């Protein structure tokens, strides 16, 4: 009992911590996965760019080579004039055109390359024009003219400029590559940092989770130990309390006994001397009678009234009151004696017991015109037969008393078994009991509602005392005008230990 309130509050924060740690862990995992995905994509793109750069470079070299070859073939043709040179020139030119187109395509995405590209195309076209002019001159046999034009045109410079442009383009590609390399390195670094943070986070989560679980486990272990200890001592505690209760009960019984006994003693006197007085009024009345007959003048009206009416009336009241007091005292005595009776548990089939009770109060039931319904089957209990019989007979008889003027009286008796308890219900459709009186009716000498039935208000007090002795409880559910149901809750097996 002491352990439960301390366990309950710690359970919630632990759950929350665990959920939070798991959420953070998953988040870290998600971030790490995202970062990895990003980096992989970045790397893929980078390698694409590297390939692209190399291809551009390759094509650039090829274009340059072919341009050089074309120029070389032209020069050879100018110097030697063989048709083989012309064929080589044309071959180089034919190969050059697609390569230039390829180069344009590859560099189209880069605005910084479009201008040199245009320059190259322009120069190549110009060069091609100049070359073809010298070639045509050589073909016509005007080699010297061609050579002169070559010199004037400064073919060397033209070629040199083309080379510079090629170099610039190659440099630009190299620059881009370097830029992309740097980018790649940065993203790799970011990735490493993200991974490191995720790893740290993960480690933290693991540590927190581990610590939390360890704490929780320790708490659990501690509460389990406490529970085990509690469990082990429970039996002793119950025994102790039962003994205390038995002692207190005994004390009350003794008190009730002494009180009732000591009350009885003066009552004997009151009744005794009242009887003496009553006996004394006989001769007195006779005397008055004789006096009236023999000497009427000595009899006063007061004396006659005193002897014939006042005295008998007073004595009558004293007698009825003492008789009632005697019944009350006897009731207390009976209760206290009931508390001291040794219980003898035995197997009792409740339906048979109820039948037996119904038979024994059959005349009362029939006189009052009550229909008694017994719900079968009923469980079997191990209890004290006499006590149980008194309880049920009191409850059933009470139920038959509280008839509602507007309807036929019915009494239902049923019994149900729940784990650890047998509950007998006695239900009537009578006048009902005001909820304010639900506790009061079980007190000695207290009654509820219209007092049109004889009784001292002992029955239910007796029933409750008996129910307690059987380890049971008694309760009532009722509303005014709607009948009442009394519930007797009993242990299925009466344990007489400590009772």
């Amino acid at each position, binding site marked *: 009992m002491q352990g439960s309130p301390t366990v309950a509050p710690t359970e919630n924060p632990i759950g929350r911590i665990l959920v939070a740690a798991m959420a953070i862990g998953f988040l870290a995992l998600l971030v790490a996965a995202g970062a990895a995905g990003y980096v992989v994509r970045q790397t893929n793109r980078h390698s694409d760019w590297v390939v692209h750069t190399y291809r551009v470079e390759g094509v650039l070299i090829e274009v340059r080579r072919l341009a050089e070859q074309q120029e070389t073939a032209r020069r050879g043709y100018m110097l030697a004039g063989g048709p083989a040179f012309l064929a080589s020139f044309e071959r180089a030119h034919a190969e050059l055109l697609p390569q230039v187109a390829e180069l344009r395509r590859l560099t189209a995405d880069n605005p910084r390359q479009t201008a040199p590209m245009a320059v190259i195309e322009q120069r190549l076209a110009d060069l091609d024009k100049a070359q073809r002019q010298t070639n045509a001159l050589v073909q016509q046999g005007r080699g010297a003219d061609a050579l002169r034009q070559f010199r004037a045109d400064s073919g060397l410079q033209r070629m040199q400029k083309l080379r510079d442009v090629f170099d610039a383009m190659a440099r630009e590609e190299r620059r881009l590559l370097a830029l992309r390399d740097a980018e790649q390195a940065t993203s790799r670094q970011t990735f490493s940092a993200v991974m490191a943070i995720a790893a740290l986070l993960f480690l933290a989560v693991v540590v927190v989770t581990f610590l939390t679980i360890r704490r929780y486990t320790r708490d659990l272990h501690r509460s389990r130990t406490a529970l085990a200890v509690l469990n082990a001592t429970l039996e002793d505690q119950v025994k102790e309390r039962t003994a205390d209760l038995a002692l207190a009960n005994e004390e009350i019984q003794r008190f009730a*006994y002494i009180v009732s*006994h*000591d009350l*009885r*003693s*003066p*009552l*004997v*006197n009151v*009744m*005794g*001397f*009242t*009887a*003496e007085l009553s006996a004394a009024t006989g001769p007195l009345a006779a005397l008055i009678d004789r006096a009236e007959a023999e000497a009427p003048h000595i009899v006063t009206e007061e004396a006659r009234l005193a002897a014939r009416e006042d005295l008998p009336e007073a004595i009558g009241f004293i007698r009825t009151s003492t008789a009632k007091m*005697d019944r009350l005292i006897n009731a207390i005595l009976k209760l206290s*004696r009931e508390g001291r009776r040794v219980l003898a548990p035995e197997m009792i089939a409740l339906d048979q017991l109820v039948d037996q009770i119904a038979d024994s109060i059959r005349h009362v039931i029939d006189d009052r015109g009550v229909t008694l319904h017994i719900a079968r089957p009923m469980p079997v209990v191990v209890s004290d037969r006499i006590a149980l019989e008194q309880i049920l007979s009191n409850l059933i008889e009470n139920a038959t008393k509280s008839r509602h003027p507007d309807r036929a009286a019915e009494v239902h008796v049923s019994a149900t078994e729940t784990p650890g308890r047998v509950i007998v219900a006695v239900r009537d459709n009578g006048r009902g009991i005001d909820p304010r009186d639900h506790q009061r009716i079980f007190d000695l000498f207290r009654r509820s509602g219209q007092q049109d039935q004889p009784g001292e208000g002992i029955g239910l007090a007796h029933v409750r005392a008996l129910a307690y002795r059987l380890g049971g409880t008694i309760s009532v559910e009722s509303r005014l005008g709607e009948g009442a149901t009394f519930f007797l809750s009993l242990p299925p097996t009466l344990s007489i230990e400590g009772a």
Partner: protein
Amino acid sequence: MNDHRSVGIVMIEDDEGHARLIEKNIRRAGILNDIRHFTDGTPALDYLFNSPDGPAKSGPAMVLLDLNLPDMSGTDILARIKEEGSPLRRAPVVVLTTTDDKIEIQRCYDLGCNVYITKPVNYENFAQAIRQLGLFLSVIQVPEVEA
């Protein structure tokens, strides 16, 4: 055979009213024996055992004993009367009390009481019981006290 008049009745009863009612009804039964009434246990014991005109010293007696006394329990007096070596151990003791507790009744008989009577609350019954006791007293034999 003893003369009934010579058997003294010692009544130990703390309630004056009860004592009066008992005496009245015994007298109504025609018993004229001497009745000595004590409301407390101590003077009663003193009279029973030590008084020169008490039962232990001079002549047979019977005891009417109430169990609820202010200074001691009636059962103590009963035990004193009936204990081994007591000169009064054969004297008849009638326990006349309001208690009808079974254990108490058993205990009194165990201690050697001769008759146990519960005072009926109903006076008619009470008076009748006492008168019958009176009739009983008029016929029983009481042994001589051993000197």
